[in-house]
């Protein structure tokens, strides 16, 4: 039955493989990265409770420490291109093709799963726009798209992130407010997209066959979604509301570094925090 038909398009010939790679790429590497990314970013809040840097903005210090670690990774650009940008482009591009093959009938069939079906596609569309803005402004340095034409700087990671969301050091500019809201909506939709995607992937691959299993896995995915949502909101709110000067102070103390400087800076920060920590105990 499997006759080769030259009238078939590339998408048709590799239909199943592409569908499954689309599903897989959403979990590894994109979903996995999202979890790591939100954990790192939310350090702007959980860093405050960490107590590792008691005499400064612990969030900004912890976040700077994390950013320094990421920037010390070898072949970072290759990791970004092959681990993130290409998989995201693949997932988003195919996703749009697949989404356009469907239709929307939630007005007639108002079932919860049908709403999620529609929202999964909507969150994909808006999510990819958000991601493009996010990467273009913060990673590729398209400052003309930034509120107040500021620039994100990995050596002053938290304070320049605050500027990217606010447009100024204190309070919000109008554009800044719009960007901050876009971030809240964007990350919320993407977290939903991931949690719901993990739920449907289990059906797609045949992991959860029975309704009971699908329901159980649904609770797991809802829990995952709630946790990631908390991290996402903590990140955006944390950066949007931080004290610019205090963050700056913490960043200068930690010291953003390049290459060999990193290790030194890290060791130093550990030594400092160790000393400060023991002082605090005393």
């Amino acid at each position, binding site marked *: *039955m*499997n006759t080769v038909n030259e009238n*078939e398009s590339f998408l*048709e010939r590799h*239909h*199943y*493989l592409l*569908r*499954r790679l689309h599903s897989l790429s959403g979990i590894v590497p994109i979903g996995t990265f999202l979890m790591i990314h939100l954990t790192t970013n939310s350090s702007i809040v959980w860093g405050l409770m960490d107590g590792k840097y008691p005499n400064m903005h612990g969030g900004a210090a912890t976040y700077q420490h994390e950013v320094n670690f990421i920037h010390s990774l070898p072949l970072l650009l290759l990791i970004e291109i092959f681990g993130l940008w290409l998989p995201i482009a693949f997932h988003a591009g195919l996703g749009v093709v*697949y989404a356009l*093959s*469907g*239709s*929307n*009938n939630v007005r*007639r*069939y108002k*079932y919860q*799963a*049908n709403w*999620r*079906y*529609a929202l999964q596609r909507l969150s994909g569309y808006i999510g990819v726009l958000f991601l493009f803005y996010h990467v273009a402004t913060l990673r590729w340095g398209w400052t003309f798209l930034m509120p107040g034409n500021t620039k994100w700087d990995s050596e002053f990671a938290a304070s320049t992130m605050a500027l990217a969301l606010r447009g100024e050091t204190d309070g919000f500019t109008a554009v800044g407010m719009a960007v901050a809201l876009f971030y809240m909506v964007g990350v919320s939709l993407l977290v939903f997209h991931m949690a719901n995607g993990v739920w*449907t992937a289990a*059906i*797609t*691959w*045949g*992991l*959860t*066959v*029975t*309704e009971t299993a*699908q329901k159980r896995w649904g609770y797991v995915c809802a829990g995952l979604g709630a946790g990631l949502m908390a991290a996402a909101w903590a990140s955006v709110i944390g950066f949007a509301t931080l004290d610019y000067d205090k963050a700056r102070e913490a960043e200068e103390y930690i010291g953003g570094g390049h290459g060999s400087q990193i290790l030194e800076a890290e060791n130093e920060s550990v030594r400092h925090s160790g000393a400060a920590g023991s002082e605090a105990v005393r």
Partner: protein
Amino acid sequence: MASSNGTVQATTRTVRFRIERSDGPGRGTRWEIFDVPVASGGEGSGSANVISCLQWIAAHPVTVEGRETTPITFDCGCLEEVCGACTMVINGKVRQACSCLIDDYAPNEGDEITLEAMSKFPTVKDLFVDRTRLFNDLKRIKGWVPIDGSYNLGAGPRETPDTQQVRYKLSECMSCGCCLEACPQYTLEVEPSGKGFVGAAVISQARYFNEHGTGSTLKKDRLDVMSGVGGVSDCGNAQNCAKACPKEIPLTESIAAIGRSTTFHRIKQFFSGK
């Protein structure tokens, strides 16, 4: 049924039908409104259903404006919700017209019921659609048990009570098309392409025959189709199918089960090269 002793007094009420009509494929649609008298309040008055009302409209083809029109065309068969022929969209949702009781849908004088043809199949006329694609897709997945041979094949393998339990439910599918009408991934094909999404009913039938002892000899062929264009991977997990199914067949379980089968099938194929 009329009351046996004839003492019960039945009054009538008027039920208004808004019907989307069409003269044929590609000829556009128009709305027509009919008032239908329905027995009310007497013993046995609850027997009026959408089909009996359509029969009345076909016999009295006059709209509420008093304009004479053509008799309404619709499809029906068993009148007990087992053949699926009278499937249509009633008040915006797909279901069988014969089991749609007027007392449930329009209990009061002047209540309205809206009828539309299924949107996912080509319209033949009015409420009558052509579901050939569904039949063709069942042929595509070889939805049968191969028992023909040049000699007596003997008795087939025994079925365990467990698989029987699962398969009995799947066997209740009447190919009515409710799951396809409600599915956001299933779209109308005016010209059959043979590549369109087969939909929940057909996926469930592939599972039904794959899990049959003798039917499973065609399992590989079915999974080839199921893992191809229009197969199970075109499902978007909106899960409307299981909600729309009048027989409450666990269609989403069938989709996941076939998803699992195709996963193993394709991995095996990848490594065996067959």
